[in-house]
């Protein structure tokens, strides 16, 4: 469904991603792990078109999307839960969701009823401004907003960042539920246990290079590698 092949991505003059390749099949959950600054967010930004790679190619549903503007990817069914949530502060919770439903021009977006049934807290805060929410509520809104666009692939960039353990567990249950529904997900995480609990395949990035790919169980057994690349 999503194929990243040998991409090299730069921020100005600094070469961040070196020859990164990864695959995400329909219905699969792939976790991308690594320390701070390993290039995880840059990989997401390369795929969604925020920072197009200078070399290599990315295909989505068989079409080459390297360097395509982000809005065309949203129309094709790519959803983003970005790092830092990036909730629109001058829109209410409900406006954030309604905008997402309409903006991508897709028919399979989650309805407000379904979103509110899944995230009851968002219904309570429907008329609140996007940034009056707590961190956990904002994260739920960021996930709900991406689902409202009707994605076939969901890119999640550190959904557990800065959240209390109880909320992290809730995010974990949410991801497991989405996985059961067959949504393909690329999950970037610092929270290794959370990622391993839902992932079918794990990639580990170090200094912009893929240093491991395989089943989560293999990574779990290899404590030397976890120590070296993940610091756990």
């Amino acid at each position: 469904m999503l194929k990243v092949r040998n991409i090299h991505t730069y921020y100005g003059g600094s070469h961040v991603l070196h020859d990164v390749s990864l695959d995400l099949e329909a219905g699969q959950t792939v976790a991308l792990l690594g320390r701070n600054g390993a290039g995880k967010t840059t990989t997401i930004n390369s795929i969604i078109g925020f920072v197009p790679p200078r070399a290599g190619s990315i295909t989505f549903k068989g079409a080459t999307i390297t360097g395509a503007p982000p809005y065309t990817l949203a129309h094709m069914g790519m959803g983003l839960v970005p790092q830092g949530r990036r909730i629109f502060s001058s829109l209410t919770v409900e406006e954030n969701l309604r905008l997402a439903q309409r903006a991508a021009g897709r028919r399979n977006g989650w309805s407000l009823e379904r979103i509110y049934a899944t995230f009851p807290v968002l219904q309570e805060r429907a008329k609140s401004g996007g940034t009056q929410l707590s961190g956990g509520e904002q994260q739920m809104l960021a996930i709900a907003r991406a689902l409202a666009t009707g994605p076939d692939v969901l890119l999640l960039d550190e959904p557990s960042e800065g959240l209390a353990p109880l909320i992290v567990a809730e995010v974990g249950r949410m991801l497991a539920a989405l996985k059961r529904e067959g949504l393909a997900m690329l999950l970037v995480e610092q929270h290794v246990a959370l990622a391993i609990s839902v992932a079918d395949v794990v990639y580990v990035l170090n200094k912009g290079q893929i240093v491991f790919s395989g089943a989560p169980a293999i990574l779990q057994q290899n404590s030397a590698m976890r120590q070296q690349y993940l610091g756990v």
Partner: protein
Amino acid sequence: MTLDTFVIQLTNGLVFSLLLFLIAAGLSLIFGLMDVVNLSHGAFYLLGAYVGLSITRWTGSFWLALLFSPLLVAVIGLVVERFLLRQLYRRGHLDQVLCTFGVGLILADVMRSVWGSYVESVAIPAPLDGQIVIGGLPFPVYRLAVIVFGLLIALGLWLLIERTLVGAMIRAGVNDAQMASALGINIPRLFALVFAGGTALAALGGVAASPILNIYQGLDSEILILALVVVVIGGLGTLQGAFWASLIVGMADVFGKALLPEFSVFVTYAIMAGVLLVRPQGLFRREQTRLA
């Protein structure tokens, strides 16, 4: 100042404020959404006034000018956005400022060669050229009409921005254009729409002002500077900010000229400097937001 002159000046202040709002609203939205300081905005205002002048002369109808001049100027705005500005979004502010400043200079030269350097004026359209007496004071009907018209446009813009899907797209784009794009919003098209809308509003202001203020070369930069002051005071990308700051600047200008003629320019800039010192993000900007 007697009560009578106070009321008259208040009316003049409202008229000037609302004309200023028409111009500053577009400048502020373009600035807030596209992160482009559009220094050609004053030229679009003056172009609107001149095109309106020609339409009024050809057709004899001020109303046709009020309708068609903004549309024509918006088309020119679209061309400028599509073929010049769009190439520069990824560059720094300096490139954009140089580009829009250059566009302003070119438009000013074109206007000089087409309409000459005379001071032009437009007659007040027939049904609105009288006066009405309210509470013993005579008020020019056209000025009252400009106040009503300006308030209606302000209300319409507010409804557009706060109550429609396109308005939500614009607000989302002002907050975080990159994230808005990731949700599927066609940002280049939204930018073009807002730029064209902003230039149309500036031109509308130019036509509406032409029966009151004269039309002359150099008016473009005078108006641009006042509109920039409004945007600084109100905060980037907020319609409410542009509205209230237009009232502040318009009133300061009119009352400054009446009460302290030697210091009238000083009054406007003192307010701006004060706002910059106390609330550098502007009076109505809620917080610093991320722009792509």
